[in-house]
């Protein structure tokens, strides 16, 4: 399953991700994304990542086991 992650040092709260992925991302009262555990469609996730103006959104790949 595709998981999203936010680089909080980059995110400026533009909110495009929440518009594109409204079922899995909401915004807090200051406009910063809240990621829910709802499954994300991979193509939609890629689109959201590519349009983030701050390059703050990424797809998190599960950690490789050592």
């Amino acid at each position: 399953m595709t998981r999203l992650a936010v680089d909080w040092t980059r995110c400026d709260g533009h909110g495009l991700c929440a518009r594109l992925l409204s079922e899995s991302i909401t915004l807090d009262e200051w406009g910063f994304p809240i990621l829910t555990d709802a499954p994300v469609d991979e193509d939609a996730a890629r689109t959201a990542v590519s349009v983030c103006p701050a390059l703050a959104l990424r797809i998190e790949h599960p950690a490789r086991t050592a």
Partner: protein
Amino acid sequence: MTVTDPGTLPALFPATPPLLTLGEPRLLAAAPPAVPSRDRAWLVHAATDVRLLGRGGAAFPVARKLASVPLGARVLVNASEGEPASFKDRALMRHSPDLVVAGIRLVAAALGSGRPAVVAVEDEPSAQALAQAAGRAGAELDVRLTRHGFVGGEIGALVNGMEGRAPRPDGRRVLPTERGLAGRPTFASNVETFAQLALLSALGPAGYAAVGPAHEPGTSLTTVLGATPVNGVVEVPHGTALRDLVGHDDGPVLVGGYHGTWAVPTGARVSRVELRERAIGWGAGVLAVLPADTCPVAEVARVTDWLAEASARQCGPCVFGLRAVADDVQALAQARPVDLERLQARVGMVRGRGACHHPTGATGFVASALTVFAEDVARHRAGHHCGRADLGVLPTTHTTGGVR
């Protein structure tokens, strides 16, 4: 309880609080023991045997960290102690610098670290004590005075600061064991961890484990403040009842510090593992009790404001959310109307959303305070100020670096 004379220091720097020990002093012993050199395998086995946990906030198993770096790794000693309520690291460095230096040398040699270990320290008397101890030992030590503040002591931020970058946490977490000083794998830990490793080498695992419960032997340094039988830095054997340190366990106690937890720790003992089972972090080892004549809501509000100001100002939820939380708690303290449900929601919303632990640690402090002081909070919220002043029991002024 033994009281050790902390000695005198130039007036520009805060005096060392009383140093106390329950039982035999180890870290605070008058003279350091001989610390034999050990190879890395010995240290990993010994630290595994005594289940040694790192003495910074995260309590990470030391053996795992030692085993995870390649030979030749650099060594970074985090002695920044940006937590205003804590004095244990400075007390250790000022009182027992030879033990600290012996521990740093032990680790650097075991790891075959080619370069001198770097010590990041904010407190000048501590830096001087370490430099003099290194001189006595004929050891090369790179002691660096830092002014990075609370969040700047987070290990990723500290590495950035040491490398000449802004002392802020990275957006994507980089472990120092993978990329630290000069971009090389680095064993980084709190300064007390190195002193504990020195004791482990000196005493051997069996000797080290002669004190404390089998599941977590040894001692820890704690800073005890407020309405407690003693105030100061205490070396305490693990397994000691919290009430023996702070006077009670049936009323509110702050455990860990400003990233810590307010709790009514009935029956709790000094043990990182046992406290974690109660969802209480030992953190920076601070234990505080508020006296009856200070307003707990105002004390908590002042600390929360300090925490919001301490933000590295990188991450939205911390910059805006933690500030909003602090303003709400301040309004509560002044018995102005506050939407308590919205405050609770804000506290939950900030948690976990940032590049470092700061928003989570800070909101944990607030959330637990709202629970433990629920009666005071309810009274203030209803517009009835308790009438008590903020006596400033919980320190929020920088206590390092002399005059600013």
